[in-house]
């Protein structure tokens, strides 16, 4: 799809990049601090360096110091609520010795050759850019110091930057950053090896929570600009009627009534790209109007006839049968130690269970929306996208332009959760602007469009078996995980999870079990599959952590003690020894799976929650612990189940170890959010398909947890860590333990085991 794509077929995704890094090991372009290009032939790259955009550490790219004594930091990672515009800026500001109230932020446009990787998913922004942004800030500070030393004609060793000023130690003379601005930007950029970082003990902002949210004041005053808010002179408003079935095509249409709606100007057909869907627009008919309402009414008036295409008979209930078949038969073995099969066959104490997670839609509060304008051969796009460069590549290709003629401005995202990693909607805006001779066009998806034309979290069925030894501990463990792969969105016919997918909490279980067999069946995809916050960890975490609880109960043991025994003593496990060659793209030596840290969060969550305390009737505590995105999370959830099955959640205790926390307040916010999103999917989340169509349409039938249902108390327990520990992810890893902890708590309260999500009305339907 683009020259940036090493695979040649599918666009850059976190999968292709990371696999590419491991598999190609060939020539990799690295942008170094000086902005020069280093061509390196080297063994596998890890972390940010494995991405096509790599890392840029040039302070001139990211920092501008102004004569009015303010500082502008350019943030190259899109903001979708994780607080990255604040958090990356505070890292730069801290090393720069800038005064936080004088720091402002600008958002980088799509341009990875200038800014480095902008692809924002995988809980990577701070993990990958903490160190680079420290060096950016430190290098800029050194340039200010050099400028001051030159001004005073003293050795640079005699001056030091301090709170927006450079001070000459001997004489106490001071120059403000504003006074030094011009000279500083003209100093040579220090060599990477010369950049002096602060001692973490000197941090003013990093690891503190004293930095206001950079966009907070704009948000509460209604001034913050999201993708849906772009307004340009002469802008047209578009809504699109898309095929309801993936791969469907428009056969004929009658737009007469639509064009008769006052305010409607034109209808434009968008061609449907052949499958696989990739990032291309789905096609259909766009109604362009003078305002949103006319466009919506115009669309309602369209008469459309579709050929539903190859997925016309997709039925998710039927598909469950396919998944059942898949997990009940031998499949591709991806990890095998000992002889689990024989032991399971012979075992006197064999436990077996299957867990189902349906498809999920992201439902970010801001639906997809994008604006495009073409003038003088240049296309400008404004879009709320997690993958700016992929957006630019798509628009470049769709318009047949040169990359340099396409600018993508990244707006704030009103939530992303993985949906806005896919820029199809920005492609629609570009095509429509082109059809209107370059006039500015804003495409907005309605909620129905969003829920019915999403890139979905794949439905999954997880089959687990364990044979227990005389001591009640598992002798053998079998797990088959059946779900469509996201690769199917990019490669026709791709089936079943790949190593980046089963590496999310299925293959890399750190349990001390002598016989383990893990299998991945081939499962096709009939809808667009896309990344959803924490991705395959959701189904794997739900199944594995529910099953551990079931096995503990079968063994007559306390689930906490049982899980700790299963994990065993603290040790650092090379993920490759767990058949995990992916490791989220990170170095296996820098980021081993540390069972001591996993034990740590379990011990912390359970002690904070008062594990083992006597519970009132109808109450129960459930525990689950997961490792994902290089971070460790353990949740203890307290539920109350009423006589008629009413479920309330008085309290959640979530212990979390992501290494050091750069912006602890935003870490907490992400964990609160992950907890509520995890509860939403556990209690309500379900997308079903019939005749290839999504049956849900809006928040009435695709419910999102509301305030009254949310836990009254979410108590967060962050594990302390020094800045010598490598950073883990934050945005996603709080989510996977939530659903299993909830279901384990329901079991503790009622004796009812939930193996199928969402819980919905299960508890009130038949109380045991």
């Amino acid at each position: 799809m683009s020259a940036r794509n090493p695979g040649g077929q599918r666009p850059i995704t976190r999968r292709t990049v990371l696999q590419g890094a491991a598999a190609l090991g060939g020539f990799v372009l690295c942008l170094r601090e000086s902005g020069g290009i280093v061509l390196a032939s080297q063994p596998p790259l890890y972390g940010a360096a494995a991405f096509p955009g790599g890392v840029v550490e040039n302070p001139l790219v990211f920092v501008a110091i102004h004569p009015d004594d303010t500082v502008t930091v350019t943030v190259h990672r899109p903001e979708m609520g994780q607080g990255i515009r604040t958090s990356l800026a505070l890292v730069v500001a801290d090393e720069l010795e800038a005064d936080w109230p004088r720091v402002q932020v600008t958002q980088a446009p799509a341009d990875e050759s200038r800014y480095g990787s902008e692809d924002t998913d995988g809980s990577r922004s701070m993990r990958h850019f903490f160190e680079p942004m420290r060096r950016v800030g430190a290098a800029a500070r050194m340039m200010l110091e050099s400028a001051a030393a030159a001004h005073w004609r003293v050795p640079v060793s005699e001056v030091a930057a301090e709170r927006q000023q450079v001070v000459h130690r001997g004489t106490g003379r001071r120059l403000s950053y504003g006074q030094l601005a011009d000279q500083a930007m003209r100093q040579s950029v220090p060599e990477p090896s010369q950049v002096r970082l602060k001692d973490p003990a000197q941090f003013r902002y990093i690891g503190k929570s004293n930095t206001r949210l950079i966009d907070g004041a704009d948000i509460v005053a209604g001034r913050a600009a999201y993708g849906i808010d772009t307004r340009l002179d002469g802008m047209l408003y578009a809504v699109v009627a898309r095929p309801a079935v993936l791969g469907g095509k428009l056969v004929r249409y009658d737009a007469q009534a639509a064009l008769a709606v006052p305010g409607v100007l034109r209808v434009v057909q968008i061609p449907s790209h052949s499958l696989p869907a990739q990032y291309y627009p789905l096609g259909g008919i766009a109604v362009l109007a003078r305002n949103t309402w006319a466009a919506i009414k115009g669309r309602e008036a369209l008469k459309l006839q579709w050929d539903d295409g190859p997925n016309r008979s997709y039925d998710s209930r039927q598909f469950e049968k396919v998944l059942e078949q898949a997990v009940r038969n031998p499949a591709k073995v991806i990890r095998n130690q000992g002889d689990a099969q024989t032991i399971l066959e012979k075992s006197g104490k064999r436990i077996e269970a299957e867990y189902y997670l349906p498809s999920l839609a992201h439902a970010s509060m801001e639906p997809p929306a994008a604006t495009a304008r073409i003038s003088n051969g240049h296309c400008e796009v404004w879009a709320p996208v997690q993958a700016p460069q992929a957006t630019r590549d798509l628009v470049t290709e769709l318009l047949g332009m040169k990359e340099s003629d396409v600018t993508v401005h990244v707006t704030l995202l009103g939530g992303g959760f993985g949906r806005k990693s896919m820029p199809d909607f920005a492609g629609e805006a570009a095509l429509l602007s082109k059809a209107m001779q370059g006039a500015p066009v804003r495409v907005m998806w309605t909620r129905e469009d969003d829920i019915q034309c999403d890139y979905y979290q794949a439905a999954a069925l997880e089959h687990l078996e364990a044979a227990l030894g005389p001591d009640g501990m598992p002798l053998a463990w079998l797990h088959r995980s059946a779900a469509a792969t996201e690769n199917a969105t990019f490669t026709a016919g791709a089936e079943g999870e790949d190593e980046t997918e089963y590496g999310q909490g299925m293959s890399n279980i750190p349990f001390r079990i002598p016989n383990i067999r893990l299998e991945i069946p081939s499962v096709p995809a009939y809808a667009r599959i896309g990344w959803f916050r924490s991705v395959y960890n959701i189904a794997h975490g739900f199944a594995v952590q529910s099953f551990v609880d079931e096995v503990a109960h079968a063994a007559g043991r306390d689930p906490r003690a049982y899980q700790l025994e299963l994990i065993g003593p603290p040790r650092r496990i090379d993920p490759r020894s767990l058949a995990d060659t992916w490791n989220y793209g990170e170095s296996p030596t820098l980021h081993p799976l540390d069972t001591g840290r996993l034990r740590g969060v379990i011990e912390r969550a359970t002690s904070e929650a008062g594990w083992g305390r006597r519970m009132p009737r109808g109450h129960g505590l459930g525990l689950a612990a997961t490792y994902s995105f290089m971070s460790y999370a353990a949740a203890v959830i307290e539920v109350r189940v009423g006589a008629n099955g009413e479920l309330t959640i008085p309290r959640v205790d979530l212990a979390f170890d992501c290494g050091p926390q750069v912006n602890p307040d935003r870490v907490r916010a992400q964990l609160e959010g992950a907890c509520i999103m995890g509860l939403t999917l556990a209690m309500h989340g379900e997308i079903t398909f019939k005749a290839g169509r999504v049956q849900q349409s809006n928040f009435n039938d695709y419910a999102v947890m509301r305030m009254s249902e949310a836990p009254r108390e979410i108590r967060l327990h962050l594990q302390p860590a020094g800045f010598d520990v490598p950073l883990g992810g934050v945005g996603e890893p709080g989510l996977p333990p939530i659903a299993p902890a909830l279901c384990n708590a329901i079991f503790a309260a009622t004796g009812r085991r939930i193996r199928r999500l969402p819980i919905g009305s299960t508890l009130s339907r038949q109380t045991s």
Partner: protein
Amino acid sequence: MRYELSVNGESVHVEAAADTPLLWVLRDELGLTGTKFGCGMGLCGACTVHVAGHPVRTCITPVNAVLGKRITTVEGIGHDRVGHAVQTAWLALGVPQCGYCQAGQIMSAAALLRHSTHPTDADIDSAMAGNICRCGTYPRIRAAIHQAAQQLRGAA
């Protein structure tokens, strides 16, 4: 049709079809994009404004239903004592994540606090039941409403 509306203390004229939801008049005609679209069916609260002091879902309120009534949007709520207290508490507690739902949340919270100086958790649950936050900021919204209420009581 041409209508005269009172928005944030100003009288404005707009051209719109009579059935146009107030949401699109505010956003498309008046450029007041602080009020958000989330569902179009009165289900999520993102589009909440005050009409004559009461919270209203503008996505299902036709423009011709609000003629002659005082409309206040998030852009104007800061001029109001209660609205200002809500915004201040929101910032102090770092409520927003993506921020997209927050205009609606703030408008619902301000409407609650105008009538209730001592809201209980149950009062908050019912006043905020129509507002969805996909980012999950509910615990902080609750805390911020209590904090704003306390500040308003102190200042009263």
